[in-house]
């Protein structure tokens, strides 16, 4: 048990000694101090904004409530569902578009027409289209993740050096080999980039959708309720929670990508 702890302790020790960490913390501390002083001085922009210390107090009380963790769970579930469907459909579609010229010709114009429409512009139409609000939100999240993934995968396939394919073909590779040995490994980094970018987008969409569609739970709803109720410290706590949730999910995707593409040199 103690074995994995020792490198961690050493790394923490190294972190504590490096100047960069302290300088970064100093930057953050300066920001918070300016904010605190700004509220003391009652600057016009910060007239309604509570000081960081008040926000911290609010955070400490909110963490104890069940409602708060329920919001996390509900939003997380929506994000996960929409995101998973988006990735599961987007990756094969992007690969197919990159590999088959005919398929590319048929589907690319359609993707290009639908893609520039911002996901949230779909909200009203989805509300009319889907029977429940839950499905509406998931479908909007799906749209956000889907187009990002498709375009990144497609770009990845198109960036493959043609000589790899020629070399494989001249050595008698089957299309199936081409796919598993060349296209998929070469595209893997782009797939994970697309997945990570798409993940960032999904959290943004879930928040906005929850605010617009007035659904009964979730982090976005919590924030909107705090806004309506005039509890500004809770608004900031919600913002921080959403940021944290997005950060955690993106870190997860990057870690997964790193594990699955070990041949890439990371800096």
């Amino acid at each position, binding site marked *: 048990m103690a074995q994995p702890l020792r490198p961690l302790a050493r790394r923490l020790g190294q972190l504590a000694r490096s100047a960069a960490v302290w300088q970064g913390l100093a930057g953050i501390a300066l*920001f918070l101090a300016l904010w605190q002083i700004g509220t003391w001085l009652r600057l016009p922009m910060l007239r309604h904004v509570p000081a960081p210390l008040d926000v911290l107090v609010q955070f400490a009380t909110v963490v104890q409530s069940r409602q708060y963790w329920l919001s996390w769970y509900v939003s997380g579930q929506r994000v996960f569902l929409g995101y998973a469907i988006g990735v599961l459909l987007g990756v094969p579609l992007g690969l197919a578009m990159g590999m088959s010229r005919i398929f590319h010709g048929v589907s690319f114009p359609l993707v290009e027409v639908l893609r520039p429409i911002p996901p949230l512009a779909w909200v009203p139409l989805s509300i009319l289209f889907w029977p429940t609000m839950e499905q509406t939100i998931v479908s909007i999240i799906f749209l956000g993740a889907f187009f990002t993934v498709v375009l990144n995968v497609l770009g990845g396939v198109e960036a493959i050096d043609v000589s790899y394919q020629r070399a494989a073909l001249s050595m008698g590779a089957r299309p199936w080999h081409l796919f598993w040995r060349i296209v998929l490994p070469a595209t893997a980094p782009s797939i994970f980039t697309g997945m990570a970018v798409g993940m960032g987008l999904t959290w943004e969409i879930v928040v906005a959708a929850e605010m617009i569609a007035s659904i009964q739970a979730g982090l976005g709803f919590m*924030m909107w309720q705090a*806004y309506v109720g005039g509890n500004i410290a809770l608004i900031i706590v919600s913002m921080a929670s959403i*940021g944290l949730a997005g950060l955690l999910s993106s870190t997860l995707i990057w870690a997964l990508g790193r594990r699955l593409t070990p041949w890439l040199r990371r800096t």
Partner: protein
Amino acid sequence: MFREWFNRAPAFGLSLFTPVYYEHIAYSVYRAYTAFLLAVLLGVPIGLLMGWRQRVYRYTFPLLEMLRPIPPLAWVPLAILMLPGIEPPVIYVTFIAAFFATVLNTLLGVLTIDRSYFRAAECLGFSPRNVLLHVVVPGALPFIFTGLQIAMGLSWFALVAGEMIAGRRGLGYMIFDAYNMAQIPTIIMGMLTLGLLGYLSSALVRRLGRALMAWRSL
């Protein structure tokens, strides 16, 4: 839907021939471009400075990384409380969306410049100003324009949501208003208009990038 769009006397009061439609478009375009320009004017210099001067990078990057994960749209309630009027909150939210994409890509662009260029410039006795103008800016330009394209897409995305939540005019508001009155053709009309405007804006940025980086198209 198209019959409605091209109708001189539309059933729901909005088509290519009504001035209100253009008013919505004008408001959205004005907000998107104001926010985008602000983001470029602030984001590119900050990104360049962070990439070029290590001290600046060390002091500011963690702060940037702390604020960046907060989605622009989560700023909406706070922006309404902090800024007066109707226009500033919407523009602020759109600005936030474009700003981080611009800063990060610019920073990345400077960091990818080969170190030997800096050393060569130093050996040739370049002043800091000349290093900035002849090494840092041209070296980062491709990344800056990638960032600007992403930022343009993001600002339209945030704008629509901002208008839906807090706007009084603009295409996002038009869509949401049409939804409240169950005017489906107008909804689709708004969506397609937005798609077209977003596409044209990205094309504009791309064209500008190509014009400024003539050496890359050889």
